């Protein structure tokens, strides 16, 4: 009996210990299993991101996706993705989650410039410690429950941006796994973001090239068109002169014809010169090499000299010059200013009726002077007002009468005005003529 009992007890004991062993074993398996599941979860996140990045072609969607997956990887509270522009100078937020909170905690954690500089030097994720100040703060326990991470974004050696992340757990409990996942996720995303941005930039460059190409053919068409009229007239005039010289038939009628031909040659040569100058100035302006030769100029005298020298007015118009003050002076480039006045006048003459009136007026305030030229032409429709100063603008043929030499003058006037820090504009109603204005700063201290 005794023996049996003892044996039974032994067996029970051994069963109990083996059961305990088994339970312990099960508990370990359970632990491993849950660890694996967690790991699988995180890896699924990474995989999902990488997979999506291969197909998604929009930056916005990548940012959304990244924030989404960050949220499932770490206990994300708030975050902001900052990216530098192409020059690496300006940095701006491209995606934010609860930015006010982020800013608040940035202050609490005392995340300053020096911290970012350090992070960029080290080129890896940094968890900002809470700092020495505020250790005895009663609110300490509250912000200790969060941590602030900065992840610098690099592609090779290129600084692409950074991510601020507020994590909803204290820094000392963040695991290695979480840190390396953050690093992997952001490294991969940075490469994708950079590639996408390059792709978009390339698209832009291609577009720009295409525009330049179109502009080039525009220049070709417009220039050849502009040049054709004066060239035809020049050619024709010289041909006639040649024939007449050969025939040696110079009577009084011929003399009259001769004078007209010479006048044509002069006029067209001037137009050609203007076109060439304008193209030259436009090129200089566009590549930033147009320089002004400024001095103090009496504006009234400058306008008068243009009116006097006005050579190619081909029809009779009544020009009236008024001014508020004959002594208005400004610090400007005299030659360039004359071109503006000449171009606007020539434009007014061109569109005026025979024997029509053209008014030119000069006025000034403390800092600027304004010249206006009013014609009695057909006027300019509202939708054309902005465009007429464009490089290759040509108004509807129906509205233009004699179109010789038109097209560049107003563009050149705009370039010169802008280069002087001024503005040029037109006010008009169809059928009631047009008034062109330009306003130029006198430049305090030099005159006026």
């Amino acid at each position, binding site marked *: 009996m005794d023996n049996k009992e003892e044996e039974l007890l032994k067996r029970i004991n051994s069963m109990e210990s083996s059961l305990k062993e088994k339970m312990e074993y099960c508990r370990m398996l359970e632990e491993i299993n849950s*660890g694996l599941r967690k*790991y699988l979860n995180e890896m699924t996140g990474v995989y999902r991101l990488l997979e999506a990045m291969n197909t998604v072609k929009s930056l916005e969607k990548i940012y959304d996706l990244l924030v989404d997956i960050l949220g499932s990887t770490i206990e994300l509270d708030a975050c902001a993705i900052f990216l530098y522009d192409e020059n690496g100078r300006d940095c701006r937020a491209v995606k934010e989650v609860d930015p006010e909170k982020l800013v608040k905690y940035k202050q609490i954690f*005392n995340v*300053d410039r*020096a*911290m970012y*500089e*350090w992070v960029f*030097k080290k*080129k*890896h*994720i*940094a*968890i900002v*410690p*809470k*700092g*020495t100040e505020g250790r005895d703060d009663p609110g300490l326990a509250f912000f200790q429950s969060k941590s602030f991470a900065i992840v610098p974004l*690099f592609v090779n050696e290129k600084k692409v941006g950074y991510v601020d992340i507020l994590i909803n757990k204290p*820094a*000392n*409990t*963040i*695991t*290695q*796994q979480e*840190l*390396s996942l953050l*690093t992997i996720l952001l490294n991969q995303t940075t490469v994708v973001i950079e590639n996408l941005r390059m792709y978009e930039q390339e698209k832009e460059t291609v577009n720009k090239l295409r525009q330049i190409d179109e502009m080039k053919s525009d220049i070709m068409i417009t220039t050849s068109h502009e040049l054709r009229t004066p060239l035809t007239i020049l050619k024709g005039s010289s041909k006639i002169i040649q024939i007449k010289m050969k025939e040696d038939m110079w009577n009084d009628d011929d003399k009259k014809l001769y004078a007209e031909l010479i006048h044509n040659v002069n006029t067209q040569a001037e137009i050609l010169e203007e076109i060439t100058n304008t193209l030259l100035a436009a090129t200089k302006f566009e590549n930033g090499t147009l320089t002004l030769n400024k001095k103090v100029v009496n504006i009234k005298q400058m306008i008068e000299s243009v009116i006097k020298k006005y050579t190619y007015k081909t029809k009779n118009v009544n020009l009236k010059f008024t001014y508020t003050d004959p002594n208005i002076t400004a610090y400007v480039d005299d030659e360039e200013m004359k071109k503006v006045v000449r171009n606007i006048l020539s434009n007014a003459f061109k569109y005026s009726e025979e024997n029509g009136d053209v008014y030119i007026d000069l006025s000034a305030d403390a800092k600027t002077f304004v010249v206006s030229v009013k014609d009695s032409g057909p006027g300019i429709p509202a939708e054309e007002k902005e465009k007429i100063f464009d490089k290759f603008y040509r108004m509807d043929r129906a509205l233009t009468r004699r179109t010789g030499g038109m097209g560049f003058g107003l563009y050149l006037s705009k370039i010169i005005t802008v280069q002087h820090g001024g503005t040029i504009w037109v006010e008009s109603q169809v059928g009631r003529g047009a008034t062109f204005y330009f306003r130029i700063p006198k430049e305090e201290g030099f005159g006026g």
Partner: protein
Amino acid sequence: MGDLKETSKELKDLIQKMDDLPILPNIISKVMKIIDNPYSNADHLTELISMDQSLTVKTLKLANSAYYGFPREIVTVTEAVVVLGFLTVRNLILTSTLYNIFVNESQEEREFDRRKFWKHSVATAICARLLVSATAPGQKEEEEAFTLGILHDVGKVFMDTNYHSQFFEVMRESKKNKNEPAYAIERRILNTDHAEIGSMIIDKWNLPENFVEPIKFHHTPGLASDKYMTNVLHVADIISKFSAITYDASEINARLDREAMGTLKLQEENLRTVVQNLEYEMSNADLFLNS
């Protein structure tokens, strides 16, 4: 580890002597275990460090050092671990523990200058980290390169301790014969070299498997299959010798493996920057040099 049938008597002896090797200090195997576990956090490392007064002080010193350059004062070990990161802390523990074994606890003056040896190890470690940062930056890889630099010549310590007279002969020979690299002389006299012994020690200490190859082939990187880290270690070793931080004049004769330089895509000017940075970092590396 070579064919045992062919193994000379000396090497067999050496392998037996492996039992005499200092066993890996407990703290290093513990820190390795923590680093191996992806779910470990700063608390786990802090717990380990806090048990050792001198490690606590060193960790705080490193976190606040000019060398590390963190822009804010760090007062607690937890913060230091958070800021320094797991791998840097691992290297700190490794460096400081090995320093105690290799330098502090070594017997009286010997022919093999342990201080110079240590300086060379630290220089190689820093240089290896700089090389990784110049070629394929990444915190994990940089810290791994540092560890390898500290450990790469560990075989020499073993030879000096257990085969003192032969090792002494090697050094004498190497001073006379500057054209023959030291590891070749070791092979001649001891039938093995410090690189091979080193890799055996790594193996015995159960350190990460990927440490074995770079250490085994740090003089002959062409033979390694893990080319990148082996090349890094090789170049770092040579640079730290050339940069007057050497502990063994004879090894200056060793030349950089051209292929290794090529595979690392290192330009002349990169190399110059690395050497400059190395000089700067060495002047700030008191913590590692006199731990």
